Protein backbone atom coordinates (compact mmCIF):
# COMPACT_ATOMS: atom_id res chain seq x y z
CA UNK A 1 0.00 0.00 0.00
CA UNK A 2 1.21 3.46 -0.79
CA UNK A 3 1.55 6.22 1.74
CA UNK A 4 -1.65 7.97 2.83
CA UNK A 5 -2.27 11.08 0.75
CA UNK A 6 -2.07 14.49 2.36
CA UNK A 7 -5.34 14.93 4.25
CA UNK A 8 -5.92 18.55 3.31
CA UNK A 9 -5.32 17.76 -0.37
CA UNK A 10 -7.56 14.69 -0.30
CA UNK A 11 -10.50 16.50 1.31
CA UNK A 12 -10.11 19.50 -0.96
CA UNK A 13 -10.33 17.11 -3.91
CA UNK A 14 -13.35 15.26 -2.52
CA UNK A 15 -15.27 18.41 -1.60
CA UNK A 16 -14.24 20.22 -4.77
CA UNK A 17 -15.28 17.31 -6.96
CA UNK A 18 -18.54 16.81 -5.09
CA UNK A 19 -19.53 20.47 -5.40
CA UNK A 20 -18.15 20.77 -8.92
CA UNK A 21 -19.86 17.73 -10.38
CA UNK A 22 -23.14 18.61 -8.67
CA UNK A 23 -22.90 22.14 -10.02
CA UNK A 24 -22.23 20.79 -13.52
CA UNK A 25 -25.34 18.61 -13.41
CA UNK A 26 -27.52 21.16 -11.65
CA UNK A 27 -26.53 24.08 -13.86
CA UNK A 28 -28.64 22.75 -16.69
CA UNK A 29 -31.64 21.04 -15.17
CA UNK A 30 -31.84 23.42 -12.24
CA UNK A 31 -30.99 26.82 -13.55
CA UNK A 32 -31.05 26.79 -17.34
CA UNK A 33 -34.69 25.86 -17.69
CA UNK A 34 -35.69 26.03 -21.33
CA UNK A 35 -32.69 28.06 -22.56
CA UNK A 36 -30.33 26.30 -24.94
CA UNK A 37 -26.56 26.43 -25.18
CA UNK A 38 -24.71 27.70 -28.25
CA UNK A 39 -24.27 24.86 -30.77
CA UNK A 40 -20.48 25.29 -30.98
CA UNK A 41 -20.18 24.69 -27.23
CA UNK A 42 -22.46 21.64 -27.32
CA UNK A 43 -20.40 20.31 -30.23
CA UNK A 44 -17.20 20.50 -28.17
CA UNK A 45 -18.82 19.16 -24.99
CA UNK A 46 -19.92 16.06 -26.89
CA UNK A 47 -16.27 15.00 -27.16
CA UNK A 48 -15.00 15.76 -23.66
CA UNK A 49 -15.12 12.19 -22.34
CA UNK A 50 -13.77 10.55 -25.51
CA UNK A 51 -10.84 13.00 -25.53
CA UNK A 52 -9.93 13.34 -21.83
CA UNK A 53 -10.11 9.64 -20.94
CA UNK A 54 -7.87 8.45 -23.83
CA UNK A 55 -5.46 11.31 -23.07
CA UNK A 56 -5.27 10.06 -19.50
CA UNK A 57 -4.82 6.42 -20.48
CA UNK A 58 -2.29 6.76 -23.32
CA UNK A 59 0.75 7.62 -21.15
CA UNK A 60 -0.26 4.94 -18.61
CA UNK A 61 -0.16 2.34 -21.39
CA UNK A 62 2.96 3.65 -23.12
CA UNK A 63 4.94 3.87 -19.85
CA UNK A 64 3.20 1.38 -17.52
CA UNK A 65 3.60 1.79 -13.74
CA UNK A 66 4.16 -1.95 -13.02
CA UNK A 67 7.35 -1.95 -15.11
CA UNK A 68 8.52 1.26 -13.49
CA UNK A 69 7.71 3.23 -16.65
CA UNK A 70 9.62 1.15 -19.17
CA UNK A 71 7.58 0.55 -22.35
CA UNK A 72 6.40 -3.07 -22.39
CA UNK A 73 5.03 -4.97 -25.37
CA UNK A 74 2.72 -7.26 -23.30
CA UNK A 75 1.09 -4.26 -21.60
CA UNK A 76 0.57 -2.45 -24.90
CA UNK A 77 -0.79 -5.63 -26.55
CA UNK A 78 -3.28 -6.35 -23.75
CA UNK A 79 -4.39 -2.71 -23.64
CA UNK A 80 -4.96 -2.68 -27.40
CA UNK A 81 -6.92 -5.94 -27.19
CA UNK A 82 -9.22 -4.62 -24.43
CA UNK A 83 -9.84 -1.41 -26.34
CA UNK A 84 -10.58 -3.29 -29.59
CA UNK A 85 -12.95 -5.66 -27.78
CA UNK A 86 -14.89 -2.73 -26.34
CA UNK A 87 -15.01 -0.97 -29.67
CA UNK A 88 -16.14 -4.01 -31.65
CA UNK A 89 -18.63 -5.38 -29.11
CA UNK A 90 -20.02 -1.93 -28.11
CA UNK A 91 -20.69 -3.54 -24.77
CA UNK A 92 -19.13 -2.26 -21.53
CA UNK A 93 -19.71 -5.60 -19.80
CA UNK A 94 -17.88 -7.61 -22.48
CA UNK A 95 -15.07 -5.04 -22.55
CA UNK A 96 -14.74 -5.11 -18.77
CA UNK A 97 -14.64 -8.92 -18.85
CA UNK A 98 -11.90 -8.66 -21.46
CA UNK A 99 -10.08 -6.20 -19.20
CA UNK A 100 -10.24 -8.63 -16.28
CA UNK A 101 -8.96 -11.47 -18.49
CA UNK A 102 -6.22 -9.20 -19.82
CA UNK A 103 -5.12 -8.30 -16.31
CA UNK A 104 -4.99 -12.00 -15.41
CA UNK A 105 -2.77 -12.67 -18.45
CA UNK A 106 -0.38 -9.90 -17.41
CA UNK A 107 -0.43 -11.04 -13.78
CA UNK A 108 0.35 -14.65 -14.65
CA UNK A 109 2.89 -14.15 -17.42
CA UNK A 110 4.51 -10.78 -16.84
CA UNK A 111 4.10 -10.21 -13.12
Amino acid sequence: MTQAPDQALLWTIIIGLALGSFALRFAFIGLMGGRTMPPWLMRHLRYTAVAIIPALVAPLVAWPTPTGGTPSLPHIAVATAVFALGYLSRNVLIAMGGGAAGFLVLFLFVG
Partner: protein
Amino acid sequence: MAITTTKSAFWKGFRDGAPFMLVSGPFGLLFGVLAVEAGLIVPEAMVFSLSVFAGSAQFTALQLMQENAPLVIILISALAVNLRVAMYSASLTPYLGDAPLWQRACAAYLTVDQSYALSIVQFETHPQMTLPQRMAYFFGTNGCVAPCWMLATFVGALVGAQIPASWGLDFVLPLAFLAMIGPMLRTPAHVIACFTAILTALPATALPYNLGLIVAGLVGMMAGAQAEVWIEKRRENRVFAKDTA
Protein backbone atom coordinates in the same frame (compact mmCIF):
# COMPACT_ATOMS: atom_id res chain seq x y z
CA MET B 1 -46.61 -3.30 -18.51
CA ALA B 2 -48.05 0.13 -19.25
CA ILE B 3 -47.30 2.94 -16.83
CA THR B 4 -50.58 4.04 -15.26
CA THR B 5 -49.52 5.55 -11.95
CA THR B 6 -46.52 7.36 -10.51
CA LYS B 7 -45.78 4.27 -8.45
CA SER B 8 -45.77 1.95 -11.44
CA ALA B 9 -43.48 4.40 -13.24
CA PHE B 10 -41.00 4.13 -10.37
CA TRP B 11 -41.04 0.33 -10.47
CA LYS B 12 -40.72 0.26 -14.26
CA GLY B 13 -37.57 2.37 -13.87
CA PHE B 14 -36.40 0.13 -11.06
CA ARG B 15 -36.74 -3.00 -13.21
CA ASP B 16 -35.13 -1.33 -16.26
CA GLY B 17 -32.21 -0.19 -14.10
CA ALA B 18 -31.61 -3.52 -12.36
CA PRO B 19 -29.32 -5.05 -15.03
CA PHE B 20 -27.00 -2.07 -14.69
CA MET B 21 -25.97 -3.39 -11.30
CA LEU B 22 -23.67 -5.64 -13.34
CA VAL B 23 -21.79 -2.52 -14.44
CA SER B 24 -21.93 -0.36 -11.33
CA GLY B 25 -21.10 -3.31 -9.07
CA PRO B 26 -17.67 -4.14 -10.52
CA PHE B 27 -16.92 -0.44 -11.00
CA GLY B 28 -17.68 0.41 -7.39
CA LEU B 29 -15.69 -2.59 -6.24
CA LEU B 30 -12.72 -1.49 -8.32
CA PHE B 31 -12.96 2.06 -7.04
CA GLY B 32 -12.95 0.83 -3.44
CA VAL B 33 -9.93 -1.40 -4.05
CA LEU B 34 -7.93 1.27 -5.89
CA ALA B 35 -8.85 3.97 -3.38
CA VAL B 36 -7.38 1.87 -0.57
CA GLU B 37 -4.35 1.11 -2.75
CA ALA B 38 -3.89 4.86 -3.18
CA GLY B 39 -3.76 5.21 0.59
CA LEU B 40 -7.36 6.24 1.40
CA ILE B 41 -9.07 4.67 4.42
CA VAL B 42 -12.51 3.05 4.13
CA PRO B 43 -14.60 6.04 5.35
CA GLU B 44 -12.71 8.34 2.98
CA ALA B 45 -13.43 6.08 0.03
CA MET B 46 -17.10 5.94 1.05
CA VAL B 47 -17.50 9.71 1.36
CA PHE B 48 -15.76 10.06 -2.01
CA SER B 49 -18.23 7.71 -3.74
CA LEU B 50 -21.27 9.08 -1.89
CA SER B 51 -20.60 12.74 -2.48
CA VAL B 52 -19.18 12.68 -5.99
CA PHE B 53 -21.19 9.75 -7.41
CA ALA B 54 -19.43 9.71 -10.80
CA GLY B 55 -17.21 6.71 -11.47
CA SER B 56 -14.89 7.87 -14.23
CA ALA B 57 -14.28 11.27 -12.58
CA GLN B 58 -13.40 9.50 -9.33
CA PHE B 59 -10.96 7.19 -11.11
CA THR B 60 -9.36 10.16 -12.86
CA ALA B 61 -8.88 12.05 -9.59
CA LEU B 62 -7.42 8.95 -7.94
CA GLN B 63 -4.94 8.37 -10.76
CA LEU B 64 -3.76 11.98 -10.81
CA MET B 65 -3.45 12.06 -7.01
CA GLN B 66 -1.03 9.16 -7.24
CA GLU B 67 0.94 11.00 -9.88
CA ASN B 68 1.19 13.96 -7.45
CA ALA B 69 -0.48 16.27 -9.95
CA PRO B 70 -1.29 19.79 -8.71
CA LEU B 71 -4.73 20.26 -7.16
CA VAL B 72 -6.04 22.52 -9.93
CA ILE B 73 -5.12 19.98 -12.61
CA ILE B 74 -6.79 17.16 -10.65
CA LEU B 75 -10.03 19.11 -10.26
CA ILE B 76 -10.16 20.41 -13.84
CA SER B 77 -9.38 17.00 -15.36
CA ALA B 78 -11.88 15.09 -13.23
CA LEU B 79 -14.61 17.65 -13.85
CA ALA B 80 -13.83 17.63 -17.58
CA VAL B 81 -14.41 13.88 -17.63
CA ASN B 82 -17.74 14.66 -15.97
CA LEU B 83 -18.83 17.24 -18.52
CA ARG B 84 -20.79 14.55 -20.28
CA VAL B 85 -23.19 14.32 -17.32
CA ALA B 86 -23.75 18.05 -17.69
CA MET B 87 -24.82 17.30 -21.25
CA TYR B 88 -27.14 14.58 -20.00
CA SER B 89 -28.65 17.07 -17.61
CA ALA B 90 -29.16 19.56 -20.44
CA SER B 91 -30.81 16.90 -22.57
CA LEU B 92 -33.21 15.86 -19.76
CA THR B 93 -34.26 19.43 -19.04
CA PRO B 94 -37.16 19.50 -21.55
CA TYR B 95 -38.65 16.46 -19.79
CA LEU B 96 -37.92 17.21 -16.13
CA GLY B 97 -37.27 20.95 -16.09
CA ASP B 98 -40.73 21.89 -14.74
CA ALA B 99 -40.46 19.74 -11.60
CA PRO B 100 -40.08 21.36 -8.15
CA LEU B 101 -36.58 22.62 -7.37
CA TRP B 102 -35.81 20.01 -4.69
CA GLN B 103 -36.71 17.21 -7.11
CA ARG B 104 -34.49 18.70 -9.79
CA ALA B 105 -31.67 18.97 -7.24
CA CYS B 106 -32.05 15.27 -6.41
CA ALA B 107 -32.26 14.41 -10.10
CA ALA B 108 -29.07 16.38 -10.78
CA TYR B 109 -27.20 14.34 -8.15
CA LEU B 110 -28.50 11.10 -9.67
CA THR B 111 -27.71 11.96 -13.31
CA VAL B 112 -25.28 9.22 -14.41
CA ASP B 113 -24.76 7.21 -17.59
CA GLN B 114 -27.32 4.55 -16.73
CA SER B 115 -30.16 6.74 -15.47
CA TYR B 116 -29.76 9.09 -18.42
CA ALA B 117 -29.60 6.40 -21.10
CA LEU B 118 -32.69 4.61 -19.80
CA SER B 119 -34.74 7.73 -19.09
CA ILE B 120 -34.18 9.52 -22.37
CA VAL B 121 -35.31 6.43 -24.32
CA GLN B 122 -38.34 6.00 -22.07
CA PHE B 123 -39.37 9.68 -22.32
CA GLU B 124 -38.92 9.81 -26.09
CA THR B 125 -40.92 6.65 -26.73
CA HIS B 126 -43.67 7.46 -24.17
CA PRO B 127 -44.47 11.13 -24.68
CA GLN B 128 -47.82 10.73 -22.86
CA MET B 129 -46.08 10.30 -19.48
CA THR B 130 -46.88 13.02 -16.94
CA LEU B 131 -44.13 15.01 -15.20
CA PRO B 132 -44.47 13.15 -11.85
CA GLN B 133 -44.36 9.84 -13.74
CA ARG B 134 -41.22 10.88 -15.57
CA MET B 135 -39.54 11.94 -12.35
CA ALA B 136 -40.60 8.70 -10.67
CA TYR B 137 -39.20 6.66 -13.56
CA PHE B 138 -35.92 8.59 -13.40
CA PHE B 139 -35.56 7.97 -9.66
CA GLY B 140 -36.54 4.34 -10.20
CA THR B 141 -33.65 3.75 -12.61
CA ASN B 142 -31.33 4.63 -9.74
CA GLY B 143 -33.18 2.40 -7.26
CA CYS B 144 -30.65 -0.41 -7.72
CA VAL B 145 -27.69 1.35 -9.24
CA ALA B 146 -27.02 3.96 -6.54
CA PRO B 147 -27.19 1.62 -3.49
CA CYS B 148 -25.21 -0.99 -5.43
CA TRP B 149 -22.47 1.55 -6.21
CA MET B 150 -22.16 2.54 -2.53
CA LEU B 151 -22.16 -1.04 -1.26
CA ALA B 152 -19.62 -2.12 -3.89
CA THR B 153 -17.28 0.75 -2.92
CA PHE B 154 -17.53 -0.35 0.70
CA VAL B 155 -16.80 -4.01 -0.06
CA GLY B 156 -14.00 -3.05 -2.45
CA ALA B 157 -12.35 -0.83 0.15
CA LEU B 158 -12.55 -3.60 2.77
CA VAL B 159 -11.18 -6.22 0.38
CA GLY B 160 -8.59 -3.84 -1.05
CA ALA B 161 -6.78 -3.59 2.25
CA GLN B 162 -6.08 -7.36 2.06
CA ILE B 163 -4.63 -7.31 -1.47
CA PRO B 164 -0.83 -7.45 -1.58
CA ALA B 165 0.91 -4.72 -3.58
CA SER B 166 2.77 -7.40 -5.55
CA TRP B 167 -0.38 -8.10 -7.59
CA GLY B 168 0.41 -5.04 -9.67
CA LEU B 169 -3.15 -3.67 -9.64
CA ASP B 170 -1.74 -0.43 -11.03
CA PHE B 171 -2.57 -1.53 -14.56
CA VAL B 172 -6.23 -2.36 -13.80
CA LEU B 173 -7.26 1.28 -14.01
CA PRO B 174 -5.96 1.89 -17.55
CA LEU B 175 -7.65 -1.35 -18.60
CA ALA B 176 -10.96 -0.28 -17.02
CA PHE B 177 -10.77 3.08 -18.76
CA LEU B 178 -9.97 1.39 -22.08
CA ALA B 179 -13.01 -0.84 -21.66
CA MET B 180 -15.12 2.29 -21.15
CA ILE B 181 -13.83 4.16 -24.21
CA GLY B 182 -14.65 1.56 -26.89
CA PRO B 183 -18.45 1.65 -26.51
CA MET B 184 -18.36 5.48 -26.34
CA LEU B 185 -16.94 5.79 -29.87
CA ARG B 186 -20.29 5.95 -31.63
CA THR B 187 -19.39 8.08 -34.66
CA PRO B 188 -16.28 8.71 -36.83
CA ALA B 189 -15.97 12.10 -35.08
CA HIS B 190 -15.70 10.32 -31.70
CA VAL B 191 -12.95 8.09 -33.12
CA ILE B 192 -11.06 11.11 -34.45
CA ALA B 193 -11.37 12.91 -31.09
CA CYS B 194 -10.07 9.82 -29.30
CA PHE B 195 -7.04 9.18 -31.50
CA THR B 196 -6.08 12.85 -31.75
CA ALA B 197 -6.13 13.01 -27.96
CA ILE B 198 -3.92 9.91 -27.73
CA LEU B 199 -1.41 11.21 -30.27
CA THR B 200 -1.23 14.56 -28.48
CA ALA B 201 -1.07 13.07 -24.99
CA LEU B 202 2.13 11.09 -25.53
CA PRO B 203 4.46 13.99 -26.42
CA ALA B 204 2.47 16.30 -24.12
CA THR B 205 3.60 14.35 -21.05
CA ALA B 206 6.75 16.50 -21.35
CA LEU B 207 4.72 19.52 -20.23
CA PRO B 208 5.02 20.49 -16.55
CA TYR B 209 2.27 20.13 -13.89
CA ASN B 210 0.47 17.33 -15.79
CA LEU B 211 -0.82 20.04 -18.13
CA GLY B 212 -0.41 17.55 -20.97
CA LEU B 213 -3.71 15.90 -20.04
CA ILE B 214 -5.69 19.12 -20.35
CA VAL B 215 -3.92 20.15 -23.55
CA ALA B 216 -4.44 16.73 -25.16
CA GLY B 217 -8.07 16.69 -23.99
CA LEU B 218 -8.76 20.10 -25.52
CA VAL B 219 -7.02 19.20 -28.79
CA GLY B 220 -9.07 15.97 -28.94
CA MET B 221 -12.32 17.86 -28.31
CA MET B 222 -11.55 20.39 -31.00
CA ALA B 223 -10.65 17.62 -33.45
CA GLY B 224 -13.95 15.85 -32.70
CA ALA B 225 -16.01 19.02 -33.10
CA GLN B 226 -14.20 19.92 -36.32
CA ALA B 227 -14.67 16.41 -37.70
CA GLU B 228 -18.38 16.63 -36.92
CA VAL B 229 -18.67 19.85 -38.91
CA TRP B 230 -16.82 18.32 -41.89
CA ILE B 231 -18.88 15.15 -41.87
CA GLU B 232 -22.14 17.10 -41.71
CA LYS B 233 -21.04 19.33 -44.55
CA ARG B 234 -20.10 16.36 -46.72
CA ARG B 235 -23.46 14.74 -46.04
CA GLU B 236 -25.30 17.93 -46.95
CA ASN B 237 -23.31 18.24 -50.16
CA ARG B 238 -24.15 14.67 -51.09
CA VAL B 239 -27.86 15.23 -50.47
CA PHE B 240 -27.67 18.45 -52.42
CA ALA B 241 -25.91 16.72 -55.33
CA LYS B 242 -28.59 14.04 -55.36
CA ASP B 243 -31.40 16.62 -55.32
CA THR B 244 -30.01 18.57 -58.24
CA ALA B 245 -29.08 15.52 -60.32
